[in-house]
């Protein structure tokens, strides 16, 4: 393991990134009335909350925040008749006809988002789904993209993107290790 991690984003730059994403979201969605955030546990949830707070600050509108947990969904094991039974959702509002913004910390293979799309479409008849991520590190294995990206990591980078968030890890930081 390399001893010197490279810091990509520190606390102020994460704050700026969240702020920029919130601006982009407001710009692309003039009608925020039907907008909701759904964070992907664990580290997508704090970012969803921060985006909601920022949008409220900028646009004056309260946007509901839900969360889904797919950490138990095993993408790598051989289970042909698997259902999305190992996933769970805490979305205590209707998503019918809503635009759902899925929020996660890192987008890489896209497998997580693919499962998240299945979970979401099981929750109601949503109108559209957008995706906001703090870091897009490429290496896609599923044809999925993000609408709002805080920081792009070069596709050729072999080191792991490591995200820490204040709410869970005591500090805000994105590093390569």
């Amino acid at each position, binding site marked *: 393991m390399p001893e010197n991690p490279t810091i990509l984003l520190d606390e102020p730059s994460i704050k700026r990134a969240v702020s920029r994403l919130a601006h982009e979201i407001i710009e692309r969605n003039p009608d925020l009335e039907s907008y909701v955030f759904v964070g992907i546990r664990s580290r997508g949830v704090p970012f969803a909350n921060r985006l909601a707070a920022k949008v409220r600050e900028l646009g004056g509108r309260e946007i509901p925040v839900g969360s889904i947990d797919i950490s138990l969904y095993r993408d790598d094991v051989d289970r042909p*008749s698997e259902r999305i039974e190992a996933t769970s959702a805490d979305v205590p509002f209707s998503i019918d006809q809503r635009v759902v913004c899925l929020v996660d910390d890192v987008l890489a293979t896209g497998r997580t988002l693919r499962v998240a799309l299945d979970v979401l479409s*099981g929750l109601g008849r949503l109108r*559209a789904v957008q995706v906001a991520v703090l870091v897009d590190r490429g290496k896609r*294995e*599923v044809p999925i*993209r993000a609408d709002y990206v805080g920081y792009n990591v070069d596709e050729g980078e072999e080191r792991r993107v490591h995200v820490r968030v204040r709410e869970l890890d005591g500090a805000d930081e994105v590093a390569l290790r």
Partner: protein
Amino acid sequence: MNRHVLAISDLSDEEIEEIFRQAEELELALEQRSVPRLADGSIMATLFYEPSTRTRLSFEAAMWRLGGSVISAAEMQSSSAAKGETLADTAKVVSSYADLLVLRHIWDGAARIAAEHSDVPVINAGDGSHEHPTQTLCDLYTLRRSKGTLAGLTVAIGGDLKRGRTVHSLVRALARFKVNIVIVPARGMELPEWFLRRIAEDYGYQPTIARPDDLRALARDVHALYLAPAKPHQLTLFTDTEFDLEGRLREAEPITLDALYMTRPQRERGDDAVEENTDYLRVDADTFQDPAMRHTLLMHPLPRTGEISSALDRDPRSVYFRQAANGVPVRMALVNFLLSQRARSAPAQPSRPRPIAPLTGARCANPNCITRREDVTSERRFRVHREPSGGAHLVCVYCDHETPLEVIGNRKSKHYNVFAEPMHGYLENWLRGDTLVIFDSVKQAEEAGFRPYKLGPQKAIMTAEEIAASIDELTEAMLQEITELNELVIVGVKTAGAFIARRMADRIQAARGATVDVGVVDVHGGREGVQRWGAANDEPPLQVDGRLVVLVDDVINSGWTAKDALSIVWRAGRPRAARLAVLIDRGHRQLPIKPTYVGKHLPTAPHERVRVRLRELDKQHRDTVVIYSYVDPKVAA
């Protein structure tokens, strides 16, 4: 004609009475160890696609007690289901071994599929989050046995009301037997809107909704709950100061809570972390100490997960263990009822209004519906439900979920139109004339050979040569990134996408002399899994595990089709990676799907249609891509 019990509504009031009467006799006979061998020589087959201990054991105990015998495949996942046999086939085969089939399944509406193919009566022992009628029979039986009657009782139901099939069956039955219902859902676990709407339509009844806090208040002061004099079968809950409360209290008559029915969170059907849900109703000795709850029965379908404190187990009002024990005599009575009906070869099923279910290409919106997993032979799989506004939606015959009505067509004239207000009258006429066809999308209607009513001028976008060149480019782009051709599988999205996939594989064959597997997925229902191109119906699906799947479609816009195709692939196995190739990307994305390879980017307006015509599909045409606008009543209005 076999009688099946798929939902509690399959039994008439008189039949339920008869079953309860016999269950009481059998309960006594069990105590006296003198049970008549009513099922002597009969065999029950139990098919459980989902783990269950008590339901299966109680069915099997019931059959043995009646002198019958049981054959069982408890772990269906590891037997024929894993080999890809359809439920329809399994039901057909097993029904030739037995006189009665008991089915539990993970998918909503599965019991009806089994019943359609079984030669013997089918009892639904729970299908997905749909129905669990025998549990409900036990619940009603326990309630009636303890209270002597059902009509006019007041029952509160607490916990996870969103997904529990037990709860849905129960609420339906309680409403039918004129029991007052107070529902006390945990946050985020409310009864679904559509379900409440259906209860209101079917029984003219709306359950009272209370928050857990209200119920705790209720425990302290049962006078908070009153029957509204204007609507005898309707409760009113006064929790805070309301207008003319005094006057209303004088008119109203206080009632007591006859039973509190608790449920556990339905973890296996996907849910919240309940430990975190402080809102989840829990019952302990304290709650039940209140004199107002003196006669309140405490019920639970079991197993429990902490909603009811074990301190209450010895309380005479706790009837949950009796409820479980009653499962045997009630199921004995039901088994005997069905077997004797069969012996009498009773006439057709009673009292279910024949649904008007038009021909359809539409797909149920419920992702857990059996019709999305398995080919359904019947094309008539929806009822058309008219709304008071004049609009309409579809109700799945199998799982009872609602699906929006998107595109309707006329079978005779071969015209389609987007369903919107100007079409309301047509719907009625076409239904009556049995010419109505329903589609999920304009694309699906066109692939079925239907034309829009009004067309704008057509404009050719691509010629045959351009299409061929474009498919070649897609293929080349794909090959640049893929070295191991044996791990590649090209999967076309039915219908046009499948032909493009075929052509790509043919080109690889011509250029490289390598044979590439071609698969087909059908996002509009039909067979689950990735079928091999040109495969017969009984051929096993293509393996995608560890392989590189390139999905191919003709046009991408919203992205829903591509997302559904990806879901099908991932349900079929675990590909190493998936990519998406499309001939045309016309924009208007609603999902975060990005095609990996695109033949042509074509900016379009929302009311425009892009149609790829392929020679394989449309004999009069050479390959073309045309664009035209259609008159969408939604836009016109």
